[in-house]
């Protein structure tokens, strides 16, 4: 620890070249690396999605073999969940938390470096399996991102072991990141900043970090069981040896459902920062936001079996998981109404971050409503494993989580770079993205209700029109993100200088710092009243 403290006395010391990034212990550099990593993965995962949509443009087999299609859906899901949304949120946490709580850096800077640099290894391994598959050296993981046993154990391709180690590495990375976040928030808050004075983004990340610490080890456990089932003769999920494949689903979703909230709670924090800024009002119902976040986190542990209503649960179990799932709508509703109340009678302006935040509120709520439809156990037997589910989780993850990340990037980019982004291009990006996302995902509701199964490369003729509409939306959506990339690069390279406050209605300690923010955020802690 002392060594780290000593280094930090030299405030202008900045290693140069590749070493600056490889050995970085600076929260801003590491945050940037996380964000660029997520951005890269976003394009890779997106390219896989476009291949999927190209294949589904018409019924029948066009472009890829069914076996490869399965690998596409699997890798798309894994990359988007573990390689895009989660690292992007960690990147935002790295950039913002120290600035928001008035600290010079994260509490554990060297661990921070390690938790980032595990990720390229993890995804290198995962993507290597895809490259090998393309080269004809055996299949990449092909069992869906949920890797249900026995698809991933008895029938898993050889590359499953790469996948397992890759998940282990991602898990270690996430857990270290979470420990760092908790230590930072507990120890480095500026004098006077009590817990209930922390910005909402800090609160949501605080709770998310606890969720990560609670469930990433369970994920590590389940892949370890897979590993020993596959290679060391155990029978956790093999009925022949006294195991139970249904148990895989229980253990997986015990991780998987809190994971869903890991991917949305920081989004709530982002939207709760942006909406007040552009409404020029303080956030409505701050403490209810904190309690709502905490109750969502708690409820996330007791709803997991709603992912598996059709495995043959008794009625009592289905009722329990149905009602507990419905309960989540209450704290989530509190949040949505708080955002609307914040905007109510505010002096609203519609810069790009605000546009994304409003689109988030509207579209995420739609995804929430389809979630309510899905949680009704008897109805779920019709919806289960159809495109309706695909529509639901893309509404909450793309127009929810991913939109919040885009909003956050537009919102804080001037603070990070010292330059304003191109507002015109930003708005163009917003409108293209929002419209195409709906063209892409909305028709999936209809084909899903009509019975089109997910993860299938071919489909019945009557689904053709809606699938064509969705595929057109997908390509517009995908290529619109190149505008985003261009806007970000342009802003990093230069542009109109941003003021320290950046936005007229900006609140929070990060906007008291100069733009661009200094290498070490708050070297002397500010006084919070």
């Amino acid at each position: 620890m002392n060594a780290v403290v000593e280094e930090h006395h030299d405030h202008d010391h900045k290693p140069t070249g590749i070493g600056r990034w490889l050995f970085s212990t600076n929260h801003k550099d590491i945050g940037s690396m996380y964000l660029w990593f997520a951005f890269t993965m976003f394009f890779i995962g997106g390219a896989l999605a476009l291949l999927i949509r190209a294949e589904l443009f018409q019924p029948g087999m066009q472009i890829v073999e069914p076996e490869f299609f399965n690998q596409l859906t699997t890798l798309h899901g894994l990359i988007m969940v573990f390689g895009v949304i989660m690292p992007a949120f960690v990147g935002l946490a790295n950039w913002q938390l120290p600035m928001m709580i008035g600290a010079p850096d994260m509490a554990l800077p060297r661990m921070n470096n390690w938790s980032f640099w595990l990720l390229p290894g993890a995804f290198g391994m995962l993507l290597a399996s895809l490259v090998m598959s393309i080269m004809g050296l055996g299949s990449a993981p092909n069992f869906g991102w949920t890797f249900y046993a026995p698809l991933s154990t008895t029938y898993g391709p050889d590359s499953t072991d790469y996948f397992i180690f890759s998940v282990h590495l991602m898990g270690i990375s996430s857990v270290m990141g979470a420990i760092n976040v908790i230590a930072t928030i507990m120890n480095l808050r500026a004098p006077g900043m009590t817990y209930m004075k922390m910005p909402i983004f800090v609160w949501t990340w605080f709770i998310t970090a606890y969720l990560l610490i609670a469930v990433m080890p369970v994920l590590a456990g389940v892949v370890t069981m897979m590993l020993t089932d596959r290679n060391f003769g155990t029978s956790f999920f093999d009925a022949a040896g006294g195991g139970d494949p249904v148990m895989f689903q229980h253990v997986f979703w015990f991780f998987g459902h809190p994971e869903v909230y890991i991917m949305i709670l920081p989004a709530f924090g982002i939207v709760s920062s942006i909406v007040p800024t552009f409404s020029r009002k303080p956030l409505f119902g701050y403490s209810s936001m904190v309690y709502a976040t905490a109750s969502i986190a708690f409820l996330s542990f007791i709803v997991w079996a709603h992912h598996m209503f059709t495995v043959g649960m008794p009625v009592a179990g289905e009722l329990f998981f149905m009602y507990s799932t419905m309960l989540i709508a209450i704290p989530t509703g509190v949040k949505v109404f708080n955002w609307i109340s914040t905007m109510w009678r505010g002096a609203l302006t519609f810069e790009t971050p605000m546009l994304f935040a409003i689109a988030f509120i509207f579209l995420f709520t739609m995804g929430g409503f389809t979630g309510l439809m899905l949680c009704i156990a008897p109805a779920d037997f019709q919806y289960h494993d159809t495109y309706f589910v695909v529509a639901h989780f893309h509404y909450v993850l793309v127009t929810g989580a991913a939109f919040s990340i885009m909003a956050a990037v537009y919102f804080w980019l001037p603070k990070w770079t010292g330059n304003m982004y191109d507002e015109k291009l930003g708005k163009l990006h917003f409108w293209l993205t929002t419209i195409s996302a709906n063209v892409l995902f909305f028709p999936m509701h209809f084909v899903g209700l009509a019975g089109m199964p997910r993860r299938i490369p071919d489909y019945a003729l009557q689904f053709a029109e809606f699938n064509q509409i969705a595929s057109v939306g997908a390509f517009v959506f995908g290529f619109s993100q190149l505008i985003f990339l261009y806007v970000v690069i342009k802003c990093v390279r230069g542009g109109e200088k941003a003021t320290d406050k950046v936005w007229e209605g900006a609140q929070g300690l990060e906007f008291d710092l100069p733009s661009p923010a200094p290498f070490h955020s708050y070297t002397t802690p500010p006084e919070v009243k």
Partner: protein
Amino acid sequence: MSVQADNQTTDNPKIIGKLLIVVVAMFGFGFALVPLYDVFCDITGLNGKTGDKVSFETAPIVDESRLIKVTFLASLNESMPWEFKPQQSFIEVHPGEPTTISYIARNISNKSIVGNAVPSVSPGLAAAYFQKTECFCFTQQELKAGEEKIMPVTFIVDSELSDDINEIALSYTFFTSKQNNEDLADNTLTAKSINTFK
């Protein structure tokens, strides 16, 4: 940094230590879920799990006013080179009445194979009321190449069974035992396996 330290409630190593304990505990909890689910299913009879208990109860009063139709199903795991079927497809019994029926299994491969039968009762709510006093699923079954064996099951349907249930299906799936790769004489493994195979 030193100014920050004044505001620290706990020092970093302590926080890391505590959180790491949580991480290790949750990793263990993932594994603990395995026996927990088993215990939960045994207590509640969920998942149709019935097979682990040998019932020694003397038969309670036979309820002659009710007739329960018990259907017998047989299936084989794909890697199992046996033929396996019940001798009769169903039987009608009074609750409380001990009944014996038989399955026939034949090894159609050219080597000796040990199999485990995994039973399941449907509907799941009936599982707790379906008692087997004798069953080939309690032990491993070894069939030599071409050998055929009649495998009896004796069961009692508990008269406490809910009035809503008039039909019960009893299904067995035969799996190749993992022991085929092991030394069959290894008694500790056999004992352990019988405990685990339900």
